[in-house]
């Protein structure tokens, strides 16, 4: 890596880190796992004057359930998600997604906070948060703020975070009984970014109909997308209802706006969304039945 010159600081507390970010205005950037930041530096696409390495800050690496939420610390490595039995049991979409991200080397370093803060429409975790009605907590110079996942992803590489705010925690509501989630991704080669990805979260009613549905889309728009019309269309319907499931796929495909690129044409990506949403609804329902 031959980056331009930069200063480097490794504060031990959030307060200190926020202070550094504030003092340098737009010149300073957070460094977490570095798996998106370092590629930008090496290509000289980013040239921050100061990198604030947050890896020495303690207490930001955890996965736990408390007060109605699954809480994941921003410095939790993606690889840790993949090894969590709790996630495998109850947060299937997050668990699946963590296993499809890049390769083991990237997962060992890349963090949950970085994956979300980067605002990359091709990153896999944002869609999971959108499907699961997640929330985010961040600390800035004037204290903590929380955001809903919906509305957090403002544009390509832009989120609702201010330049001097640090994402600290990602929250997902503990799902009710008979809920299930799944993340499906088509990638051209293993370890590639998604050609298209779909996160589905369902909660079943008494008759196994969908009482709650969340659908998030990866790589098919300027940001990760929430397929609201598709979610609504599935309410009260069963995943065994072929017509309903296909219609939801259709609506999600309509909601997407993929760009033709080296991973495939717009039509192909829409086709994948159609297929993956339908299949995702079926699989999430199967998991919900098993109580996953």
């Amino acid at each position, binding site marked *: 890596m031959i980056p331009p010159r930069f200063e480097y600081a490794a504060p031990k507390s959030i307060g200190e880190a926020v202070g550094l970010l504030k003092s340098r205005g737009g010149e300073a950037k957070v460094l977490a796992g570095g798996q998106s930041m370092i590629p930008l530096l090496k290509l000289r696409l980013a040239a921050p004057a100061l990198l604030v390495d947050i890896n020495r800050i303690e207490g930001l690496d955890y996965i736990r359930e408390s007060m109605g939420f699954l809480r994941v610390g921003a410095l939790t490595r993606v690889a840790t998600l993949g090894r969590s039995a709790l996630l495998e049991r109850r947060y299937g979409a997050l668990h699946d997604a963590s296993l499809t991200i890049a390769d083991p080397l990237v997962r060992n370093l890349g963090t949950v906070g970085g994956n979300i803060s980067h605002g990359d429409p091709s990153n896999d975790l944002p869609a999971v948060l959108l499907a699961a009605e997640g929330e985010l907590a961040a600390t800035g110079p004037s204290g903590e703020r929380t955001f809903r996942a919906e509305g957090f992803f403002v544009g390509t590489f832009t989120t609702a975070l201010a330049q001097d705010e640090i994402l600290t925690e990602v929250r997902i509501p503990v799902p009710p009984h008979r809920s299930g989630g799944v993340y499906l991704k088509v990638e051209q*080669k293993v*370890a590639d970014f998604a050609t298209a990805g779909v996160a589905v979260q369902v909660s079943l009613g008494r008759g196994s109909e969908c009482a709650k549905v969340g659908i998030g889309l990866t790589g098919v728009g300027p940001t990760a997308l929430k397929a609201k019309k598709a979610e609504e269309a599935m309410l009260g319907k069963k995943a065994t209802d072929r017509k309903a499931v296909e219609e939801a796929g259709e609506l999600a495909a309509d909601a997407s706006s993929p760009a033709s690129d080296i991973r495939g044409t717009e039509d192909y990506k829409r086709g994948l969304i159609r297929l993956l949403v339908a299949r995702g609804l079926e699989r999430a329902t199967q998991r919900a039945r098993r109580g996953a």
Partner: protein
Amino acid sequence: MKIVSVGFVDEEQDPDVRFVRGAGRYVDDIKLEGMQHLYVVRSPYARARVLSVSGGITGNELKATMESVGEDAGGRSTVSFPVLSASYVSYVGQPVAAVLGGDKYEAADKADEVDVQYEPLKPVMDPERSLESEPIHPGTESNLVAAAELGRDFDLKAPVEVEETLRMERIAPNPMETKGMVASYDGSVLTVYASTQSPFSWREGLAGSLGLKEESVRVVQMDTGGGFGSKGGIYPEYVVAAYAAMKTKRPVKWTESRYENLLATNMGRGVRGRMKVYADRKGKLKGLKADLLVDVGAYPLGGGAWTAKWIASQLVGPYAVPKAYAAAKAVLTNKVNMGPYRGAGRPEAAFFMERMMDRIADETGIDAAEVRLRNATTRETTSPLGMEAPPSKRFFTEALRAFRYSSRKKKDKVGLSFFMLIPAAYGGESAKLAVEGGRVKVWMGGSSHGQRHDVFAKKLVSEELGVPQDVIDFQHTDTGAISGGVGSWGSRTAILGGGALVEASRNLKAAAKKNLGKKYSPALLLEGDYEAEAFFKPKDMLNTLGANLATARLTKEGNAVVEEVLSFYDAGKVLNRFMLESQVTGGVAQGIGEVMYEHAVYSEDGQLLTASIADAGVIHATEMPKSVVMTAAHRSTLPHGAKGVGESPTIGVPPAATRALEVLLGRRFTTLPIEPEKLWAHDLPGRERTR
């Protein structure tokens, strides 16, 4: 029959696995006293006038032009390729200036000191429209580089006539080690440490560009981490680095990043073939017509001037056809130069021909293997396009048996290819042996850039001299140590370098015998001081045959992938099975990459969109099909019986794998790589329903 997994090193065969242990010694490991680092400033435009350039070393100071040498050499062109352009630029990444720094970081930062003013022009990107576009080089009349006609045009009516336009798109060679060198000048000799396939070509090219005598340039090859054709000639960066070392009288290192490598390294393929075949109802070929178009990029240096004709000459492949005619053109575009890439023209010819054989099978309803057998030959032939070929029928019959073709065809979606490999035997190759201090040093004129030539070299020398392998020290090529040589490419080193080693060993033994008389023994040989060289030029045709079978399946999301690749190649006497299997396995990976993933994509304004190794499509072990490597051991007429094999998989795998995918999906494929959506089994709007 043995399955080789990618990346395993057989410790028993090769206790000295230094590359895997991190003990290789590459250009970037070199540190010389006072060494500076060179950074090259490149054009951000595909086509532009350079209004002014200042700062660093520029084309106003270094007015040299590039020489066409090594594997790139041959053909003629009126367009000259400046080392640093001061007047206009013709591709994104073209060098315009260079700066020096104490380390890589400082050198890269100093790029800011260079000021270039450009006036961007509309680039010519589509080779199909190159000839009707404005010439990209001022002062020339058109973008035509070369045109050739082979065979004689004919009129024919046949019961089966099939036409198809086929394409192999451009791909980046992507060696694991990017390009690089260190130059050092002592006032009389310029010494260059190189990541190369050919020190002798470098010597010729650097001396030519810089106006030096060849005796005052010495090129030493370092461990070289892959080339695939991209390191057989020279690049502007080499000339600038050598010039900078001479100018400053301090050593200069130039190594490039992956990004720079992708931007400014010659790319392979980029060829369109419009094919027409004539056959009877029994599938027997009656005639073949071809119209080829080669996209040579901005400067016809990487073989652009001869590739079109070279591909055309091979089109008939291992078959017999009474009439053939090919017209071939090479044209300029505003892309980095085309250059040799593993196979270099051979894969294009085989892909075009084998696709047509499959088309004849489809049109006549005759099995694809049967169609091929019916057109195979029973004696040596010279095609109407002028290419010699060995008899092919017996070999292909053997191949089908080795593949257990009939039973595979019943249970799998199968694609097949038959092809001929023409090794680059032209020019021969050298070898040298020196006995000193009880050890034998061995050089060849062209040396390993990843193939582990040391393994066969030690074996051949040990067998000839009767000395144990562990007293033999394999050396990379050094123009200061051996008096002449060619280089390593075109499936040539085992056959030619190997032949030269056998001859040099025999010369050495003769010299020792002259000295020792009747009491000669390997032990006494090692006690003396002896030297011998040989330059080996084979007399017979060395063209050989190969066949591949591939199978395909669907993933659970409905994406088609290649499941298994069987290779059956006539490699003559196998010098080392493990090394041969490793070579073929790597080539299978590149063949699959070419069919499904690898592609150099440019935007309309000439920017390279695939500028990372991931986007360029290099595959991982996870995309690798199961690979089975088999050989037919029909000795060649060479003293060691070997035949070429290095390029066989990139020739044979693409057509076989393409066919397997075609059979699986029921869709016709004409362009490589096949786009992702075309490999998806599900329906898309505007696509006709498939079975």
